[in-house]
């Protein structure tokens, strides 16, 4: 919306005089058109005092209308932004993140069940793993429904959801088969017969190659929608703030101009009604600009400290669970041990990347460099800065509150303990002591399971801290907008009434 056409000198208010008379003086002054125009203005009474007052009043009222329109439009944009990021899509996107997590954890539970074989009480136990498997499957189904809803009429996305659900059917069939073979073989922990390994390979490959990528991409894609809408809405709020500022300035200049004109012409110092109107317009403009700045800030906090971090950390959590399951897969399928070790490393790197420099990028290097990276999360870092990347690494560089900062530090410390256990487990396995490796991996009291659960709890607390920041920003945004639907109109009416009240007595002097 652009206000300029109403600027007064170019477009005289028609109410201030009758239609312009034909210029009979034209013949006398044929030289310059400009001079003619000036004379025409004089003839139609524009240069009379009431004419000027009428023009000034009309322009002022028009400016006030523009100010209100600009404010209302910007309030609408701010509300739209909060609705998308804070309420609808933002929350839905976070919900689809559970699809990836649930699917990935289903496969992790299957790996544990197959690994322990007939020793049903190892780790969290077969029964508990089965319960978790069922729960994750239900969660995956719910999240898929949610994802289908967000997809709306987007055919590509709907198709992806369908493919995930179809694939899930095939996956469950393969898992059923693997579990049946597993029960029939009645093997001790870690000694799976080839047919079980073969069937599980089919299932886990299907999960890894077809289901998980689609689920992950769905969340990324709907996250992209939120990002686009955030950028558009925030830019609109900021542009709206500029318009409110400019139309506010215009209204103020006109009000003051009118005031000065009246003072000069009628030799009065202050016109109280106009002065009040000026204050009113000033209040609307200043409050409006302030409110819109605050809204842009709330939106930014909700998006960056809330939405983005929650999405990244949920990804880190899902990938961590999947990496932890790669330890089980490493133990249950020695034929693919190298591959599962590599995927574990890849996942660890995507959670927390440490630059290996000249050293080979393998787990050994990672174990060595991780403590230094974790120390760099302390608030007063001693020693040279360590560059960390990956999902938890990038969090470090974000602007965080003290609560998030300390929880992030606790999370990476717990992560380091998970890697300590991983190292010990692999050392045992390489030495040939598979039994001890499996016992360490499944130990709930002090071993790998205990360390991983502690890490997972810390990570959940960290996510909660960002969720709180998100909720706070959304609430502040909603509260900040309260009343702004009616306020600008009411204020405008009051200002208009005051302006009219201010000029009316002066115009009356000419009747």
């Amino acid at each position: 919306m652009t206000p300029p056409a109403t600027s007064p000198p170019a477009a005289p208010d028609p109410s201030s005089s009758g239609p312009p008379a034909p210029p009979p003086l034209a013949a006398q002054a044929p030289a310059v058109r400009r001079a003619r125009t000036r004379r025409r203005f004089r003839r139609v009474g524009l240069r009379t005092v009431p004419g000027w007052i009428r023009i000034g009043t009309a322009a002022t009222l028009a400016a006030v209308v523009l100010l209100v329109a600009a404010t209302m439009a910007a309030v609408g944009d701010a509300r739209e932004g909060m609705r998308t990021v804070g309420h609808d899509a933002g929350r839905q996107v976070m919900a689809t993140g559970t699809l990836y997590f649930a699917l990935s954890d289903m496969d992790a539970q299957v790996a544990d069940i197959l690994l322990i074989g007939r020793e049903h009480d190892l780790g969290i136990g077969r029964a508990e793993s089965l319960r978790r498997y069922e729960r994750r499957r239900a969660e995956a189904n719910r999240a898929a429904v949610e994802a289908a809803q967000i997809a709306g009429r987007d055919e590509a996305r709907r198709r992806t959801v369908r493919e995930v659900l179809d694939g899930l059917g095939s996956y469950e069939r393969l898992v059923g088969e693997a579990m049946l073979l597993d029960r029939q073989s009645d093997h001790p922990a870690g000694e799976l017969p080839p047919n079980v390994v073969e069937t599980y390979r089919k299932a886990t490959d299907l999960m890894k190659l077809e289901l998980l990528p689609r689920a992950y991409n769905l969340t990324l894609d709907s996250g992209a929608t939120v990002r686009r809408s955030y950028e558009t809405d925030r830019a609109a709020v900021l542009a709206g703030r500029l318009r409110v500022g400019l139309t506010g300035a215009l209204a103020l200049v006109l009000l003051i101009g009118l005031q000065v004109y009246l003072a000069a012409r009628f030799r009065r110092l202050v016109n109280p009604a106009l002065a009040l109107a000026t204050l009113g317009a000033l209040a609307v403009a200043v409050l409006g600009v302030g409110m819109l700045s605050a809204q842009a800030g709330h939106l930014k906090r909700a998006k960056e400290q809330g939405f983005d971090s929650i999405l990244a950390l949920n990804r880190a959590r899902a990938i961590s669970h999947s990496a932890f399951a790669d330890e089980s897969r490493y133990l249950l399928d020695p034929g693919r041990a190298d591959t599962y070790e590599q995927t574990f490393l890849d996942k660890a790197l995507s959670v927390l990347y440490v630059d290996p420099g000249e050293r080979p990028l393998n787990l050994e290097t990672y174990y060595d460099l991780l403590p230094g990276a974790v120390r760099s999360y302390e608030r007063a870092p001693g020693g040279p800065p360590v560059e960390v990347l990956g999902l938890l690494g990038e969090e470090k560089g974000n602007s965080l509150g003290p609560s998030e900062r300390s929880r992030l530090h606790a999370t990476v410390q717990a992560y380091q303990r998970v890697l300590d256990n991983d190292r010990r487990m692999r050392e045992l396995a390489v030495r040939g002591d598979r039994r001890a490796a499996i016992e360490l991996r499944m130990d709930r009291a002090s071993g790998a399971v205990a360390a991983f659960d502690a890490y997972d709890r810390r990570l959940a607390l960290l996510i909660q801290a960002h969720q709180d920041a998100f909720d706070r920003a959304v609430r502040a945004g909603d509260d900040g907008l309260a009343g702004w639907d009616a306020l600008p109109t009411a204020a405008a009416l009051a200002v208009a009434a005051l302006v009219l009240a201010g000029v009316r007595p002066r115009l009356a002097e000419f009747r």
Partner: protein
Amino acid sequence: MHNPRLARRGLALAAAAAAVAAAAGCAVEPDTGSVVDARSLTIGVKADQPGLGLRRPDGRYEGFDVDVATYLAGRLGVPPERIRFRTTPSSVREKALREGTVDMVVASYSITAKRKTQVTFAGPYYVPHQDTLVRADDDSIRGVRDLEGKRLCQVTGSNSWRRVTEERKIAARLVEAPTYSACMDLLAASKIDAVSTDDLILAGFAAGRPVKIINAPFTDEKYGVGLHKGDLAGCEALNRAITAMYQDGTAARLLDKWFGESGLKLTTSVPQFEGCS
């Protein structure tokens, strides 16, 4: 005293303010320089990798990367006649993107955490795996561990051999060669026993030679589309285009066209994207 000059000045000021407001109204959207808005594209590809990106004697480029790039550009609304391909060797990919000599890079460009700090990656559009190529009649090598004591090609400037001898500490005997194509000649002459690198690269070289890929993958690479750092809109649009490429069957067709005869196990479902950053 009547003071029209003062009054007029007030009105003039107001008019100026209105003009500023009008100008501001149409100047908020900056030029993003995203590939989404491009009318034509310069795309960086490899010139020396058969099957992926190869420059033919007539100056035209061909390969899986070239076809993928052409498809993706089409999805962005850029027809083939408005695409210019440009040879972009591994060492200059970041620089070419930074300096804008290319708009995007589709050149067996692996996404890594480190590169992500300089480049925005769409995709991956394919996840190749490091695998091993041996002579067709050699049955002694079935997995990467079997390279112990075998003669392995060490290509100058490539990191693939490190993944065997350094990362996995498998004591293969390294034999230096300047390029993978030189490795092929060494392998044919029985001067080495194995070549280990990305399976798509192996498949490209394997065509028409008495060699085989052992299908024992041990890494996941991620071939991404490199964009100017920060082109998130372009990255998101390309991810959607890659999804479409798999959904409409083009990816499967192109993989079969370029690597179908190599005996390589190909994945024809969409890879897990890295996320735009």
